[in-house]
């Protein structure tokens, strides 16, 4: 088992070095190799710490995200090397937080009792951008602290999962379900007002998954779907930005030089990649607006081809599967629901952004977990992984005890 894991880590390092050496060759510069070496050191050291001291947990919950992160780092480095150095700093910080959580979080079920606190924090975080927020790229979902901008909606997600995990267990009848869903719908409403529709969709996805798994009652799902549909129709007629997004989705080519530019360029990029891609460094991802962030999947598809893009989606699939497996084996209902929430968060986030880039659903600006450039998203996702790792560690031992 362990030798297998080691050989996987070795292969990941080989792929990383190979990709950076392609970049080094094409730029005739040794600096990509340094970045590659640094990434490999990070991969190996974080894996060895986990496998040495926390061997009980599911190591794949670390190995797969490390691999996924390399896709993002190499792509960001290829697009804009200055950003990549910042991203490595975020990556290191993320790993640091991951380690802190794995080392210091003893018993996750102790966090269960603060349930209303979580809801209040989530709502405060989301409403803070309404008052102190700054509009960046058409969404009012950024808080500016000194030199840095943070995205409170990313952090709110984390608290929402904890709130739902502790609240859902008390649901006995329909009235309880309505009561616990009020904070969630307040959050989604705030996100719609702030024009962060993607995050709203993800919040709803997390909510519906956790409610279904926590109560296994189809009635609640139908009810919340009904509320969601009514809410979307209402916001379609009420808010202009929702209508714009929708119109772009229906026909991006109509306004291909302005509003539909991003989606048109990413579709062209994916198409020009073909099955095997143009090869690293040979595509033109710089044509796509926001390529290091929202549309990074289009750039990956262009340079790694359909096969590379599919591999990335498969990796996410395996990651979500491992998360759900940790949920099944978790030692109590609270940790099980938290694991479900985190896995569904990753799953829905990937669906919303990849679906948006390939024009399956309207494109909304959310980050591709572990791949897109962004500090808040990187750190938060690693924090979630740390919690997941902790849950997988303290699993029920049915057989031996």
């Amino acid at each position, binding site marked *: *088992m362990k030798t*297998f*894991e080691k*050989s*996987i880590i070795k*292969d*990941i390092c*080989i*792929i990383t070095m*190979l*990709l950076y050496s*392609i970049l080094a*060759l*094409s730029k*005739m510069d040794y600096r990509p190799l340094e970045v590659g070496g640094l990434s490999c050191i990070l991969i190996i050291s974080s894996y060895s710490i986990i496998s040495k001291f926390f061997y009980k947990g599911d190591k*794949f919950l670390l*190995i*797969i995200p490390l*691999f996924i992160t390399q896709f993002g780092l190499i792509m960001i480095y290829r697009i804009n090397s200055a950003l990549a150095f910042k991203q490595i700093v975020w990556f290191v910080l993320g790993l640091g937080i991951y380690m802190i959580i794995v080392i210091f979080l003893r018993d996750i079920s102790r966090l269960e009792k603060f349930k209303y606190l979580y809801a209040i924090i989530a709502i405060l975080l989301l409403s803070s951008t309404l008052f102190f927020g700054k509009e960046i790229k058409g969404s009012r979902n950024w808080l500016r602290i000194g030199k840095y901008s943070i995205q409170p909606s990313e952090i709110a997600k984390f608290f929402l999962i904890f709130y739902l995990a502790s609240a859902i267990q008390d649901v006995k009848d329909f009235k309880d379900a309505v009561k616990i869903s009020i904070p969630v719908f307040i959050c989604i409403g705030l996100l719609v007002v702030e024009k962060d529709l993607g995050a709203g969709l993800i919040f709803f996805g997390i909510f519906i998954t956790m409610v279904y798994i926590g109560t296994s009652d189809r009635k609640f799902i139908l009810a919340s779907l009904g509320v969601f549909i009514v809410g979307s129709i209402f916001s379609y007629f009420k808010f202009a930005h929702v209508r714009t997004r929708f119109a772009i989705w229906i026909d991006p080519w109509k306004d291909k030089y302005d509003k539909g530019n991003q989606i048109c360029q990413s579709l062209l990029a994916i198409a020009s990649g073909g099955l*095997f*891609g*143009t*090869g*690293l*460094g*040979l595509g033109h991802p710089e044509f796509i607006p926001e390529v290091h962030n929202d549309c990074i999947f289009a750039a990956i598809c262009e*340079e*790694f*081809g359909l*096969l*590379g893009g599919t*591999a990335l989606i*498969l*990796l996410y699939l*395996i990651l979500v599967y491992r998360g759900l497996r940790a949920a099944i084996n978790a030692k109590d209902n609270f940790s099980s629901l938290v694991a479900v929430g985190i896995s569904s968060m990753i799953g829905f986030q990937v669906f919303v952004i990849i679906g948006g880039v390939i024009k399956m659903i309207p494109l909304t600006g959310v980050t591709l977990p572990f791949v897109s450039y962004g500090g808040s998203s990187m750190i938060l996702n690693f924090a979630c992984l740390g919690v997941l790792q902790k849950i997988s560690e303290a699993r029920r031992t*049915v*057989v*031996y*005890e």
Partner: protein
Amino acid sequence: MVKQITLILRFVVIGLIYVVLFKIIKVMYTDLKGSKKKDRFLDYALEVLDAPSESGISKGSVLTLHTITNIGRNQSNNIIIDDPYVSSYHARIFIKDDELYIMDLNSTNGTIKNGDLLKEAEELYSGDIIEIGRAKFKVIG
């Protein structure tokens, strides 16, 4: 020239990515199969950590456990330790209600589990260390 190399290397990279994916899935598959097997059988074993060379069991070997496993110097035992410090019928490891227990059979020098002398039948877990005479075992499973 560089362009050609890049074009060739892209196949290598994609191939390697899929090799990793295949390996991950393979590990998970064996993992899934293994966990099912453990639910049905209790396959515990004893690993010999230390034993005198003349005792007849070699260091590093793995001894399988049965529903009842008798340990002692006498030839009718399941695990025979030819060591003067071991009694003829020294200890018994048995499975009851799907759980593993160890019991000392009133031996002269006693049986030591995780550093403590056994008084009555005690439950065994994977990783426990058992000392019988000069031999030392670890429960694995």
